[in-house]
């Protein structure tokens, strides 16, 4: 179909309303910009000529593919195994400290992977704390933390909360009458869980697993510190070491292909229903199941991941900080990187929300084939690893947009492409809650479509805009690969300065910066999760998921 064909068909929206031309134009511009990295990567790889097939079929590429695949499968399986029982126990049972544990079990995801990795190495490496304790008991050598085992540990700790959040949302949404019906028909509690609960949770588990797999695929800091080579870390190495960056481009394209495969494999469970649930009425809460004497053991099941994934890492950072302050050790300079991080993150948040507005308004209020196309192209950032976007923009900057290269704006562009889905998602759900009749009322009172958008729609979606902006802010603070590749020379943010110290094994120096980063990300996340235990649980859990989905 020709482009004009798309437009003329697209205009026949469900209510015969035509979007204002300027809205359409700005949405088109945003969608086009979001597609630049992928398109340019293609262009660049094709320019590489016939060589690129050799690269793909090289044995080392196959080995990297195998290792990445192995890690993804392992991390996903372990994350689901850890998360589903926690979700069930924190929603449906009467374990002690249930509310505290419900919040705490989500929090490991606020720790950036490179920070988590440093603390894991400190604790469990052959020269680590645990080995020190065990030596006194006569254990000479614990299994080596470097490699697959350590990478899996780090990634599971930071990704199981994605499965936890999606499954918990599904459990809360589920009508308790279904389980009660099964019980009334003579099913025992375990049989009920297997025959009713688990099948109902399957889409949520699939959705959460997709997030885990995509995160694992795109993580750089964690796997690099634990010396496990995946696609992403190979691309980074290639990019940093070689003069010809075509190899990195081709490998990136391969990475995109894997991400697309994961998205397709998940079977489009994401976004089916869910968003459009319109009943706001109180959901009947099922009675929590009394665990009897087992409730303390059950609390331990929830508590162990919290201990390993949250308390120990934060404890290690605090220990480093205190020891550093007492011994007058050198710490990373905080002020400049913190100021830079704040500045870049704010800028990214504002730009991304502004870019998301026309896309979201068009998608919700003027539904058509064209508006869906725009929304889809924006969601491409959902599956794109940061390293791919950054690399492509480097090529783009050097060859096409030379004035942007080595400026902060190319970095903001990358954050925008990566995190647009988070802000579009937040705005979208906020817009869906605005009664379209309210906008029609304004129009019948003589307001043009533009005035309706500015005087009614935008004021009413401000909460969503703030939520979306906050997510982009947090994600930008933690982002590593794109920050490393695209920051102007000498421009240090919190995450890039932590990384450069950590990659040279000066872990203790990172303590203050890392704690600051964890706090900045952790407090709002804890707040959102806490609020989730009020009336608005589902929405806030989902907003967290959307936010994390864009990582």
């Amino acid at each position, binding site marked *: 179909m020709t482009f004009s064909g798309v437009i003329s068909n697209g205009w*026949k929206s*469900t*209510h*015969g*309303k035509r979007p204002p031309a300027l809205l359409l134009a700005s949405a088109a511009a945003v969608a086009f910009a979001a597609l630049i990295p992928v398109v340019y990567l293609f262009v660049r790889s094709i320019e590489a000529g016939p060589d690129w097939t050799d690269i793909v079929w090289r044995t080392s590429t196959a080995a990297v593919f195998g290792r990445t695949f192995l890690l993804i499968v392992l991390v996903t399986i372990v994350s689901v195994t850890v998360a589903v029982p926690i979700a069930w126990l924190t929603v449906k049972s009467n374990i002690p400290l249930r509310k505290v544990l419900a919040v705490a079990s989500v929090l490991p995801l606020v720790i950036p992977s490179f920070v988590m990795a440093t603390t894991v190495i400190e604790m469990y490496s052959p020269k680590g704390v645990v080995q020190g304790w065990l030596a006194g008991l006569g254990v000479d050598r614990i299994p080596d933390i470097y490699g697959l085992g350590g990478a899996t540990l780090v990634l599971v700790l930071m990704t199981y909360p994605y499965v936890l959040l999606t499954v918990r949302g599904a459990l809360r949404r589920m009508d308790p009458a279904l389980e009660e019906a099964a019980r009334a028909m003579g099913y025992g509690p375990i049989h009920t869980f297997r025959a009713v609960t688990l099948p109902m949770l399957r889409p949520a588990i699939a959705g959460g697993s997709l997030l885990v797999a995509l995160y694992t695929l795109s993580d750089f800091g964690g796997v690099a510190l634990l010396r496990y080579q995946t696609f992403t870390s190979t691309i980074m190495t290639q990019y940093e070491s070689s003069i010809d960056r075509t190899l990195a481009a081709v490998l990136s394209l391969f990475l995109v292909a894997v991400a697309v495969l994961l998205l397709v494999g998940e079977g489009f469970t994401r976004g089916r229903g869910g968003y459009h649930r319109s009943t706001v009425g109180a959901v009947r809460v099922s009675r929590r199941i009394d665990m009897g004497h087992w409730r303390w053991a059950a609390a331990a099941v929830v508590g162990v991941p919290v201990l390993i994934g949250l308390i120990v890492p934060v404890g290690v950072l605090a220990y480093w900080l205190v020891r550093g302050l007492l011994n007058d050790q050198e710490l990373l300079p905080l002020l400049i990187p913190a100021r830079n991080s704040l500045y870049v993150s704010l800028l990214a948040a504002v730009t991304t929300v502004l870019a998301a507005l026309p896309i979201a308004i068009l998608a919700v209020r003027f539904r058509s084939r064209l508006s869906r196309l725009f929304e889809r192209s924006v969601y491409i950032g959902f599956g794109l690893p940061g390293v791919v976007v950054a690399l492509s923009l480097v090529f783009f900057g050097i060859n096409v947009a030379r004035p942007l290269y080595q400026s902060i704006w190319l970095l903001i562009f990358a954050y925008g492409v990566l995190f647009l889905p988070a802000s579009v998602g937040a705005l979208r759900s906020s817009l869906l809650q605005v*009664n379209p*009749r*309210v906008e*029609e*009322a*304004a*129009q*019948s*009172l*003589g*307001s*043009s*479509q533009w*005035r309706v958008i500015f*005087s*009614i729609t935008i*004021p*009413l979606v401000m909460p969503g805009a703030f939520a979306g902006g906050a997510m982009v802010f947090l994600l930008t603070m933690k982002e590593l690969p794109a920050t490393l590749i695209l920051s102007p020379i000498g421009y240090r943010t919190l995450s890039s300065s932590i990384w450069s110290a950590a990659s040279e094994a000066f872990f203790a120096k990172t303590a203050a910066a890392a704690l600051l980063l964890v706090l900045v990300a952790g407090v709002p996340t804890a707040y959102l999760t806490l609020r989730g235990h009020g009336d608005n649980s589902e929405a806030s859990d989902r907003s967290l998921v959307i936010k994390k989905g864009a990582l």
Partner: protein
Amino acid sequence: MKMPWSRKQAYLSLPLGAVSDAAAAAMAIPILPSTETGVIHLQGVECRYPGSDSPAISDFNLLVRPGEFVSILGRSGAGKTTALRVVAGFEQVTSGYVRIGGQLVGSSFVHVPPDKRRIGLVFQDYALFPHLTVARNVEFGLKYLSADERNSKIAPVLKMVGMSGYESRYVHELSGGQQQRVAIARALATNPVALLLDEPFSNLDRQLRAALRRDIKRIVRESGATTLLVTHDREEALATSDRIAVMGESRIEQIGTPEEVYQNPVSAAVAKLIGSCDLIPGVFMGGVVVTEAGVFPTRVTTESSMSDGQQVLALMRASELELAAASEGDERTATVEAREFEGEFSEYSLRLDSRTLLRVRRRAANVLEIGSRVTVHTRDESKVIVFAV
């Protein structure tokens, strides 16, 4: 009382960015002659949603005259809200002509957007702006006035709907009935050409509904606004309207004063919508209808004539029937199946021999026992309306 203000002159003539009647004629597009100018005039209107097989409304004709209060009565899904949205400009028509104040605003080739139609619209869920106070809601449509002029107009409108003193409240601080009043004030403040009400009472409880209905009738009369109301509630339509347009599937079946439509429904469907009734089959025989429940004098409301022996449906209204205990030898009898006591009257449910149900309302005195055999008669010389099958 006319509203003491009117819009600026520029707004009085509809700013049609599109085609006027004359221009359309010049373009040699056939336009049906408009014999009468009403405030709202729909001629042969069809509205079809994309992707749907059958039109939501088709061959829809309606004329609302200045100052008139007209209701569209129909069951849900009949297309009555679509008709309202066509008038307001939220739906584009696929054929036919929509005129407001004599100006063509909607057809297959003209579509004046809602903000250029000067229509006051009150939504079923009120659609008040949640981020604005009552006063800011009311003045929203007055943006062409200066701040002082705006403020001077808020007070009289709020007074008219009985909401003085609530200016600085937010919408969520108001009850449903209060929100309703603010919605009407907001619509009337702009001095619209016509006021459209979409099921305005359906979100209110029963007692509040009757009181508010009377209030709104008064407000509308005071403002002199031409009003089109859409409802599925026959009581509402009968009590408020100057004329009622009864909608069947996608088109208007009958239009007239409440009394006309109630007394002379032109079809069984209209009869069922306009009043509680039972329809039983019978045979037309020289001025009477022979049914299972008895033989009744008839009248015909449609123009077609009845021939003897024709199969018909007899319209039986509970309040026009009377019962008597059956005696030996009575041919057409029924059994009392249930009796509901309502105070002065009781409603009897009769079971005919073919298992058909028939309801009769009669004075509560002279109780007829459940299970007894009765005969059915028309009360006070009233005649039974029959429709051809």
